[in-house]
């Protein structure tokens, strides 16, 4: 990681968005104390993690990307075990496990071993195991990877409820839609650097508002940077052999933008107007698609 600074506030869902290998899991490992930073510090509730790691860990709940549960134990036993490790008494763990099983829709399978659960049910138990002690900060490392849409919908709904309850949530994902629909603020991470952060709207504004034009043409030998009028009116987001993606630089009317684009010294085959998404932001920041 290189010079990454951000904060997550109570009741906020902060998304860390980045491709595989961007450093999302490493960031979470640094926050949970699994890894030791060679520089910089992690503050949990205003106190450096290194000052009292055990105290900080009591405030956190971590849901790893890979399932970290015991398949030989039942769902209830898993929840109670992780609850006990988080410092709950046997009675508290039992009662809280019952609540969570109910909330996660797993009450009827509570006594079955996790081995017999579906992928989505295992994900829910994996999530529940981090919530026994009602953490103030919840760290979710791509909690919806590899599950069906229905199970994902259930988990995302549960996460929204947690946020509504005042839990600070740090959520890593490489799914654009999740980041766009779920997160209050988003940090874009690539190669260990935080390239940009803000709300979806703020990030979209980096591209010049809510309009992006995709121009399709033969651009193989075109020196678009030298085209008169393009640089003054538009911000170049991406250029490929077949596609030019630009955002209007000022408060231009869409019709004017279209007229200007059609006037470019190239035979335009098609122009599409769309709302910029996080992929466009990532594209502008890195020159690569997030999905690459």
């Amino acid at each position, binding site marked *: 990681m290189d010079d990454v600074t951000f904060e997550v506030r109570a009741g906020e869902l902060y998304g860390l968005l980045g491709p595989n290998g961007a450093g999302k899991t490493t960031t979470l490992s640094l926050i949970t*104390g699994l890894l030791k930073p060679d520089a910089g510090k992690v503050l949990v509730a205003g106190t450096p993690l290194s000052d009292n790691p055990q105290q900080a860990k009591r405030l*956190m709940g971590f849901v790893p990307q890979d399932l970290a*549960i*015991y398949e030989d134990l039942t769902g209830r036993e898993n929840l109670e075990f992780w609850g006990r*490790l988080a410092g709950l008494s046997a009675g508290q763990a039992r009662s809280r496990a019952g609540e969570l099983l109910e909330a996660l829709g797993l009450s009827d399978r509570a006594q079955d071993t996790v081995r017999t659960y579906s992928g989505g049910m295992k994900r829910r138990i994996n999530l529940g195991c981090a919530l026994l002690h009602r953490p103030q900060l919840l760290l979710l490392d791509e909690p919806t990877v590899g599950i069906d849409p229905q199970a994902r919908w259930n988990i995302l709904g549960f996460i929204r409820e947690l946020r509504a309850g005042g839990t600070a949530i740090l959520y890593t994902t490489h799914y654009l839609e999740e980041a766009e629909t779920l997160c209050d603020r988003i940090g874009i991470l690539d190669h260990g650097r935080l390239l940009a952060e803000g709300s979806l709207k703020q990030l979209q504004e980096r591209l010049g508002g809510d309009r992006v034009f995709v121009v399709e043409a033969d651009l193989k030998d075109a020196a678009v940077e030298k085209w008169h009028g393009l640089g003054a009116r538009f911000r170049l987001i991406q250029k490929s052999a077949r596609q030019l993606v630009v955002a209007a630089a000022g408060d231009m009317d869409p019709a004017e933008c279209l007229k200007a684009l059609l006037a470019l010294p190239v035979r335009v085959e098609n122009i599409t107007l769309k709302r910029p998404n996080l992929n466009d932001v990532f594209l502008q920041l890195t020159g690569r698609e997030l999905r690459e």
Partner: protein
Amino acid sequence: MLGILLAKDLRRARRNPLPWLINLAIPLAITALIGLTFGGGGAALGRIRLGVVDQDDTPLTRMLRGMSQQGRAGNHLEPLFLDRAAAERELLANKLAAVLVIPTNFTRGYLSGSQRVSLELIKNPAQSVHPTVLEELLEVVVTALSALARNFGSEFPAWQAVFEGQADYRQVAALIERAGEKLQAARAYVNPPLVTYSKQPPEPVSWPATARESPARPAKPGRADGFNLFGYLLAGMTGMFLLFIAGNSLNDLHREVRLHTFERYHTLRHSLLPFVAGKVALATVLLLAGSAVLLGGGALVFRIPWQHPLALAALSVGYAGFAASFMAVLGALTGDERVGNTVNTLVAMALAVAGGCAFPPQQLPALLRQHISPLLPTYWFAETVRRLEYGGGDAPWVQVTLQLAILSLALLAVAALLFRRRFRKGLRA
């Protein structure tokens, strides 16, 4: 915390008992294997049942038969005098270790020197040690008979007459007198012998300074009579197989890394010591069960009379703790289960061999025996058990148990530190 972790692992073991059962079955199988190798049961070597078929039936062969029942031979040999058919039946029924056949005219041929004579030994192929012992004994008898023939050959015709009842008492008396004179003349060459061999007593365990300064007391007289070869070997074998079982059991640490549950634990608890200690404690329990199977099973099934059960139990606890925490350290050093399995096996084997578990330490090269073995916990355990049981019961077992316990705690702390270091460097499944 330890209780929570142990309860979790016991639940896992209850749901998936196969690895545990295999770990307990291994020592059971090994005990049975060793027991069968050494004759199938009985204390020590036991009395060797030997069938004797005396087809010659002369005073000489009757004398040989008598010798096999007298003195110390009688303590170890149980000769049964049978005809050939009955002896073969007994042999096939695995009731005899071997059958010695003294052929017709053996005495006549031996005393006349007219022909080459031979004794026939039919060994029981279903047994291993007893028939070999009998073969060695027969070689001694044959060597003695050959020596007699060379030194008293000139008198043999007269002796033949005696055995065939053709000599009177005066001739017999003269023969005995001449034999006595010859023996008297040969005495200087026979006693004391020019070359002797005596078995070295086991080298004392190299205890820490306090124990080494006080000379070991001599073994209590009469203890050597209780020597049991199977028991002697089993002490070492137990040391070796407990290491293997510990390796298998502590591989669960690798599984916890692979399942990401160890990592999850670390996100909740800063100290890794309870987690590693839980695994070591559980492995220690398993090792004690294995130890009970090996040593207790040996005592019950093969009637090994362990003289110091309390000391043996204490040593087993100390050694089980050492084996488990040592394997936890290896687990922290090796990357994954596959590498861990290989490394555990190799290191356990090396420790067992160098510590005198696989072979008696007296058989090891001098460098190993004198400078390396005494430093190894495998040696402390196996040699203390052997000295307790077969060295007169004089071994500082309390001190050795404490040494093992302290070493276990130190290794446990090292294992936890090594895992923490690996986590900080990015330990991943």
